[in-house]
């Protein structure tokens, strides 16, 4: 049908060409289209302006630091000795711990809500998870500072003394035989910050995953059951494969938020400026925490150096978010126009 409509109706008609279906827009419509385009472009300009302004303000510091900005492990901008060589790996380490905790938890909650929960509970649970996604980071920061930091000591001490031989988990100068051991060495660590951030990002990951699990088609589910699968068998063979894109996309979205979380991390950690890979040991850092700490600003050059760090963070999260958006969009077939 569709093909027939576009073909010339008859060979005898001669030179009949396709009709133009575009109608002449009236004056009001043109104004409307213009204002919509203006809004769209304004959003584009604001978003592009972020990168431009950061780069513009960062350029004095970047001009001085040059390539050393990527290789220096210190933050003394007034001595012209600063770089992100320690900050970026520590940021990634915190985000890595956060994702390691958040993804299994989010998967469990998402599977529970979409596959196991009684129908009458489902609506309420979805609301709770969405509500938790709106809980501000500063609330999690308060919890991390006043509850988690003191209470994490026994756990961190036990992990480091039992699994200390594994990479990242040891605390080399811990003094476990001393009864008056200084226990604050286990506080304010990458591990603590990672747990706090994992709670911040978990609801976001969970709702992306749940939406993709819920899209697993009913026919395939029933097919799996009809072939004798148990519920877990059905989940493994139908729900998880259909939701894989959502799982990866949600994880990357959470990773992006974890990399960018500033306040909750800043409240929990003790800042250091040299890279140290022992995640249970006090002292870590992230670009966001540095920005939150030095945001008051001192000299113009120090502020410029901060903008350079912000630019690095911006670039890092942009790459991750862009990848996440691509993956999520690819799985949302039919909705993309």
């Amino acid at each position: 049908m569709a093909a027939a409509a576009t073909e010339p109706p008859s060979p005898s008609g001669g030179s009949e060409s396709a009709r133009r279906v575009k109608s002449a827009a009236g004056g009001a419509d043109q104004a409307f289209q213009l204002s919509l385009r203006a809004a769209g472009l304004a959003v584009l300009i604001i978003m592009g302006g972020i990168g431009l302004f950061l780069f513009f303000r960062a350029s004095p510091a970047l001009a001085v630091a040059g390539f050393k900005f990527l290789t220096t492990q210190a933050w003394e901008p007034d001595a012209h000795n600063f770089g992100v060589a320690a900050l970026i790996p520590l940021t990634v380490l915190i985000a890595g711990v956060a994702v390691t905790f958040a993804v299994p938890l989010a998967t469990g909650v998402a599977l529970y809500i979409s596959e196991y929960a009684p129908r009458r509970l489902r609506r309420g649970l979805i609301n709770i998870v969405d509500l938790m996604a709106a809980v501000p980071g500063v609330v999690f920061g308060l919890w991390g500072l006043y509850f988690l930091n003191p209470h994490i000591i026994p756990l961190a001490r036990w992990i480091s003394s039992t699994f200390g031989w594994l990479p990242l988990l040891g605390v080399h100068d811990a003094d476990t035989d001393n009864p008056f051991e200084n226990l604050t060495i286990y506080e304010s660590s990458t591990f603590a910050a990672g747990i706090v951030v994992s709670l911040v990002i978990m609801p976001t990951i969970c709702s992306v995953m749940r939406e993709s699990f819920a899209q697993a088609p009913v026919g395939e589910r029933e097919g799996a059951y009809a072939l004798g699968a148990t519920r877990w068998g059905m989940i493994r063979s139908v729900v998880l494969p259909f939701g894989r894109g959502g799982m990866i996309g949600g994880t990357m979205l959470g990773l992006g938020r974890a990399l960018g979380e500033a306040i909750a991390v800043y409240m929990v950690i003790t800042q250091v400026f040299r890279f140290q890979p022992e995640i249970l040991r006090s002292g870590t850092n992230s670009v966001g925490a540095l920005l939150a700490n030095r945001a008051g600003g001192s000299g113009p050059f120090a502020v410029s150096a901060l903008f350079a760090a912000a630019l690095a963070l911006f670039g890092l999260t942009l790459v991750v978010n862009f990848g996440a958006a691509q993956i999520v969009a690819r799985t949302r077939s039919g909705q993309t126009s």
Partner: protein
Amino acid sequence: MTTTIPPQAPARTAFGGTGGPEIRRVTSARTRADVVVLLGAGAAGLSLAALLATRVIPAVNLGGFVVIAYVLFLVLYGVLVSLDQDGRAVRDRLATVTVHSIAVLALCALLFVVGFTFWRGREALGHLNFFTSDMRLAGPLDPLTVGGIVHAMVGTLIEITIALLITVPLGLGCAMYLNEAKGALPKFVRTVVEAMTALPSIVAGLFIYASVILTFGLTRSGLAAGLAIGVMILPIISRASDVVIRLVPGSLREASLAMGASQWRTALHVVLPTARSGLTTAVLLGTARGVGEVSPVLTTAGFASAVNLNPTAGPMPSLPLVTFVFASSPEHTMIARAFGAAVALLALVFVLFALARVLGGRPAGELSPRAMRNRARESQRDLARFNARQQAAAQMGAGHEG
């Protein structure tokens, strides 16, 4: 595979000839034996862990005890199920138990964070002056009977209003643009907006600091903070609105155009009202995100302890900023105030969320009973108007003839 549905006594049905009403068959695969096995494994796990914790491993704290008990429970449960069922059923049961416990753990952790905040905030919330006065007269050592956070509450309201005045028209306009316009540019804008939804909020704050404050010479103020919040939630609101508008059925739009409505009338009178519920949700959830973030206002709002009603001059702290600053004080009363401010912030977020769920949350085109009545009334009015016009035309015609 006989594991999931055990043989059941034949249900009494009309076919069975026993008469009486049909009894609804239970299709659930769970039997009493399953429940007994589950409870038994739980009891055994707990007792074994208690034995281990008191006799074998000396110093084990509560957390360690719970972990040991849970692992023992899983092992015992697997063994018990495997006594009379095959491996697939064992894996199924273990997965069920694991998913349930992960869900309970995660939800409890999240609720615990919120509950902890409320619990620690109770001290400050008990004093009425906490909601009615600012911190002008209260130093860090003053008791909780002096000072409050009204300056931060006012600041939050002013800043979020400024942010919404900018983002609602821009965000909705952008979402309409993404749906109404054709070509490569809208696709590019959509990609950029999607990538920006997780823009680190501290970068949004620094952007306003770099542009509005350093380049255009504005001071740290409520206006700058509102702009920073606006930049942060603009992509969030644009993207959520875009998704909602995309769900408006094309047939509605086509019907309107086919009736001769112009594009802007179609957009304003058909597309936007149809998506109104979802758009409300999008805006309110974006607001809830923006209202709680410290990072955008950290560099732009400035800190003060007195009420400031003028957004263009003077520092204007907001609830999250006050929470953050108070929490970094070593004084007990300031920490109590920080938790109190956090509770106020949480309450605001919860109210926004509840509003979003009450006002919004319906799929495109589905109306609440009240909206339905309004729609019916409008139709009645239209009908009356058409009738009046027809009558007038008929009378005019009659007048001409006569």
